[in-house]
Each structure stands twice: as C-alpha cells, then as structure tokens.
C-alpha cells in the first residue's frame, strides 16, 4: 500500500502535562497528521540529544518537543533546561547535516488539544517546505 505520506514527526511529550492534551485531541477527534508519533517522558528536560539524532537518522523528518514550560512539577527551570537541550541538538544536527529547523519546541498543557493539532499542521508544512 503506497500512499503519499506527510512528513514524519516524532513528538516528545510529558506524561502528566502534554500527554493528556494530546489524548484529548484524539478523544475529541481533532485530527492531525497520522505520521505523528509520540513518546512520553516524565519531563521534557530529560530528552537526550542522541535520541533526537537517532530518530532523524531513522527517517523522521522532524522532532517536536511538547514542553511543560512553567507548569513542570519537577523543576522551575524546566523551560530553560529544555531549551538548552534543543540548542545542543541543533549543534549536533548541523554537524550531521540536518537542518536545525527540523526540531521545534512549544509549551503544551493538559488541555491543549487544538493547539497540539495546529502545531502539528504548521510543523508538517514547514517540514514539507524543507523537502521541496
């Protein structure tokens, strides 16, 4: 079965905060691209850059980090720490010839169903443009 597939996106979400928002998008049948795959972690500041690189090498077109931002129950510095991780990822992505635009972050909360879907639509568009 060969269908034209939209860009593959790997989302790192967090179990307590953004995951419920993503679940809610499904529950309310707010559709987003079926090429979006989600891995949930306790905290967005625990993402290892090597996982990001691994995903890109395995054919993912983009990585989206659904961060906890100021809602994080683990660390008041979460937004800053997650941002540091993105900076490090981008440094390594450049070394490996991946466009740094392939990683993106946004704060999502536990009721962010529509925002999640629209982030996915925007990011898919950006990634599709990178291809052309």
């Amino acid at each position: 079965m060969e269908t034209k597939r939209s860009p593959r996106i790997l989302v790192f979400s967090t179990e307590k905060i953004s995951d419920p928002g993503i679940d809610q998008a499904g529950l309310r049948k707010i559709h987003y691209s079926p090429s979006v795959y989600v891995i949930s972690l306790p905290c967005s500041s625990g993402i290892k850059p090597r996982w990001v690189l691994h995903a890109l090498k395995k054919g993912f077109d983009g990585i989206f980090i659904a961060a906890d931002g100021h809602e994080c129950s683990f660390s008041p510095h979460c937004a800053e720490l997650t941002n540091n991780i993105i900076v490090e990822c981008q440094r390594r992505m450049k070394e490996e010839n991946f466009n740094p635009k392939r990683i993106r972050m946004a704060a999502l909360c536990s009721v962010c169903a529509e925002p999640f879907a629209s982030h996915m639509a925007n990011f898919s568009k950006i990634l599709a443009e990178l291809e052309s």
Partner: protein
Amino acid sequence: MEEKQEKKRIGVYICHCGGNISDYVDVEQLRDIVSNEKNVVISKNVMFACADSNQKEMIKDIQEEQLDGIVVASCSPKLHLHTFRNVAERAGLNPYNYVQVNVREQCSWAHSDHPDQASYKAAGLIRAGIKRVSHSEALENIQIKAHKSVVIIGAGVSGMRASIDLARMGNQVFLIEKEANAGGQIAGKGKLFPTEQTGKMVVDTLMDQIRRLPNITLFTEARVAKVTGSIGNFKVDIVIQKAQDETISLQAGSILVTTGYETYTPKEGEFGFQTSPRVITLDVFDRMIRECEGKLVYDKKQVSSVAFIYCVGMRQSKGDNKYCSRTCCTSTIHSSLVMHEKFPRIRALHLYRDIRTYGKQEMLYEKSSKAGDIYLMFQEQHPPHVESSGDQMKITVKDHLTGKQELDVKVDLVVLVTGMVPRTDSNQVAELLKIPVGSDKFYNEIHPKLRPVETVINGVFLGGSCQGPKNISESVQSSLSAAAKINAIIRKETIELEPIIARIDAEKCTWCGKCQEVCEYDAIFQVETNGKLVAAVNEAVCKGCGICTPVCPYDAIDLIQYTNQEIEGMIDGFAQDVELKAREREEGAAHEEGGVMMKDFPQLWRSIMDVLDEGPKTIPQIALKLSQPAELITWHMMTMNKYFIVEPAGIDENDEYYRYQLKNKA
C-alpha cells in the same frame, strides 16, 4: 550498564475496544503482522482488553506460555496502566515487564479520518511497544527504612488533632509551634459554630489529651530552621527561642504541615479602616462581644446598630485574593446571632455580595433573617461608601436587588468581614520543604480530588487551613486524613517506592558534577567505588524526572524505564516500514449515526439490528436468538448504545433486564 537479556516470549493483545479502535484500525491484519515479529509467541485480538474475562485469559496465557513480557495495544495508559500491571502481577510476571500502547486516543480516534494511515501508524506503535517491552527490566520497588515519628509544623486545631491520632496509633510526634501557646487562630475566639463551644474550650480539651500522651512532645516558641533527608528519614532542625536560642535536631519518617492562615488586614482607608473611628474587623468585633458585659460598648459609646461589610479583601477581580474565604459568611452571621443573644435589641445590617452559608450553615442564615437582621446585596463594582457622621458612621450603598437604589444608613459600628489569607511567612516554610504554593499562595496538594493531602514531596503532607480557607471541621478532616496516610506509610517502618529513578554507570562517570548541579532534589551525591570518585543516586530522594540524564557529557546516566535501548528501540519500531493489504471490508457503506461516522458495522451488529427490528429485546433474549454468549452481546450493545444505534426501552416484566430498541426506528 549491564546488558539486559532481551525478552524471548512476548504476548501482544490488540484491542477492538468494541469498535472504537477496530472501526478504523485493521486490528486483525495487525495481529497477523505482529505474530511474525521476533520473540512474539502470542498475538491476539480482544474485544475489550480491560474486561474481566480477558484479564483472566491473559493471566492464563502468561502462566501457560511462560510469557516474559506483555504488550496491550488499547487505550491511553492513563486509563489502564495499573489495570494491566496488576494483571501481570497476578500472573506472577513482573509488572514492569508490561507495556501499554495507545492506539485509541493517539491513533484510531485521532486519525479516524484516515483509517488506512491509522492502521499503518498503529503497526509502528505496536512494534515500538514490542521493542520497549523486550528491553524492559523486571524491577522491584525500592525499600526504605522509616522512622516511626512525625514532625507536625503548627499547633492550631489541625495540628493538635492530628498529633493526638498519630500518637494514639503508636508514633512519636513532635509538635512545633512558633507562638508561646498552642491553639492557633481559634484559641482567642468566643463561641464557634456549629457547636457553640468557645475556642478556649476546644483548645483546652485538645491540650488535655496531648498532655496525657507521653509520645507527643510540644515545642513552643519554636521554628523550623532546616530540613534535610527524605521520606522515612527526614532530619528537621528546630530553633527554640530562649535567652540563648537552642537548636534541636529531630528525626522523622514524615512531616505534616498545619501552619494555618492569617486574617486579611484591610488597607488603610479601605471602607474607612484606620481612617474613620468606628470601623473594626470581625476578629475585633468577636472579642468585643466576648469581653463586654451588660451592654455592647465601643470607644465609650453604647452600640445599638452594626453594619457588617462582607468579602473585604476577598473575591477581588483585580486584587491578589481571587478566591472566596468561604468561612466568613457563616462566621459573621453566627457572630451576629451571638450578639443578639447577649445584647438584645441591637440592629444588624449585612451588606453582602453573596451569602455562602453552604450545607447546614444555611440554618444560621435563616435564623438571623428571622431575628430581623437586614440583608442588602451590593456588587463589587459599587462597594459601599463609609464616612463618619457625628458620633456615627454613614454608609452609602447601592442596593443591587431593589433596582440599584442608593441608600444612606447610619450605624454605630462598621464591622469589616475579613477572610482567610495565607501566612506571610508561608514562602519560607515552602522553601524549607520544597513544597509548591498555588496562585492563591496557599500550599498546593498534588491533586485536589485524587490526592488532596499529599504534596509533590514524598512524605510531606498538608492539613487544615494552610491549604486554603476551611472551617474547623474541614480543617480537622483534612489533617486527620493526612494523619491516616502518614501512619500507613511509617507504621511498617519500611517504605516501598516506585523504582523509576536515575541510574549512573560508575565505569563511565568521571565525577564532573554536572548532574548534581541540575538535580533540583539533591538526589545526587559523590561516592568512591574502586578507588574512583563517581556520582550516585539517592534512591529515596530521586523523583525520576530524568533531568540529569541529558547533561552528562559521557552518557553515563539512564532513567530506568526510559533507557537509551528502550527509547531508541521505540524509535526503530515507529520507523520500520510495513506492508499493509487494503482492508477487507464487510458489506455496507459508511454510515452516519448520531453525528458519529461509523465505518463498516461489524457483522454481528447487523444481526443484532435485525433481531431488534422485531421489537425491543433484552440482552439474554438477543443472545439466545443469535446463539452467542450474553457477554459478547453485552459488549456490542454497550458500544451500539454509545453510538446512538440502540437505546434502552424500559425494564422487562421480571424487573430483571433492560430491553433495548433501535434508536431511529420510526
């Protein structure tokens, strides 16, 4: 890090969820694809994975097939992670060798507009689950020694009551009070609702019980200076004010915070407070009632009329205190009644925004209205104006209920109903204990409904009005529930914790200290192994956030359950291509029912609908007609009911079963 043995006998269960998944995702084809995956020995479709009958089936499979890992592809783990962990445990499989894959919320529902692509994605999700489970470790909960002692901070009614229960349950209790006496806010109050005991009586009774319990130590004029350690083993340093301050170190398995509240102090000029002579707060008024004899006198003048202004400093749309203090309406009405009882013939005017005498407290409101008290409602944007007028106070107020008429009233005394606000030093305690404060600046529990007295810090609990406005009964309820929780934890003198924590590979670590810097919980410390300084994790303190894992320059840290192998295995699973055949569909076009797009009714639904065409039937009747087990029919009927295909049609003549009929049978 030690190489983990890959799982060799994996069982995979792919759920229909009664159509919620299988309407969009080709679960049968996925089952066949998965059965060819490496190390998968069982691959099954189930109608409802969470159903009791399926749980039993899984237990049987795990035991008979000696499964060493299971994957359930169904709904969100938020719903059933613990259900299936329990299934694993009951079957003798380690609960951490089970992985839940979300093919409903994050697949069939999210992509119901693209069923083919949903099936493709589900294949990736399930393969990721299989990879993850094959790298999963059997984990044992962490066991920690616990002191059978509790530090309670704050000896108001909440702390006192909790200390008595905890002591009676056999624990050592250290009760810390910063003032010279225990009792807190009620100690100085007169008669209290609903029992009409005075504050002093309540406090004396509690104090008497405390004195009789040798395992309670009350420290007064004492403050907490430092807290270290963690659940089971906190070390709390307190400083006792004396001519020479004395510091004492206490050891405790758990800490209960019952530091209470303060009353709001009106700003200068707020309703004439401090700028007009005859404006006082409810606290002062209560004291006056208690202390005056024969007649009520304020500032040498007999009081024959009082106006209460409600919600002062509370429910501010533009201030700090957005919340309702919820006890003050009742306190005020109660004070007014106590006043009438002691000093008959004083007129009372209540200027309120809303009256919130919830529950039985409503009776007090009724009693006060019958006693002739006058109630006038004002709106926040038109607050009463207060000014002095001779030896009286003049209040101008827009009566909201009678056509916004402006009224002038003269009274001898204005009482400002000030509510409960957080303690000014609450941040200090929060910082010592690392517990969060909410936007209202009271302490925050983990979850207001599900975990109402726990904080994010394991072993630290909240009780009473330090969490938000509460009356005595509510304060004591919460502190006693915290006491019960604490006792359950420290009673056995060992504590079990979830083993999701960071783990450091001592071979790779060079002790650069980077992980220690980012850990918010001081969970990382230095140890010497084989003559080398390396980092180690304090199991009891680690919260399992994983924040330390990306900062290590040598990739020496893994978060258990989220190791490189597990996460990268999942990514591999997602990325693997899959050949899917176009789904073989049963006859029948897409169908709109109750606003829900139903693709392809399962054949059984058509049969059920045919049976119901004859008229309403019960589930046993349908089952009999179709020669199917009643349980199966129940599952389908529930789903059909949910999608508005059938509806209940009353109970049968034996008063036993519901009948169902077709919904749109016109």
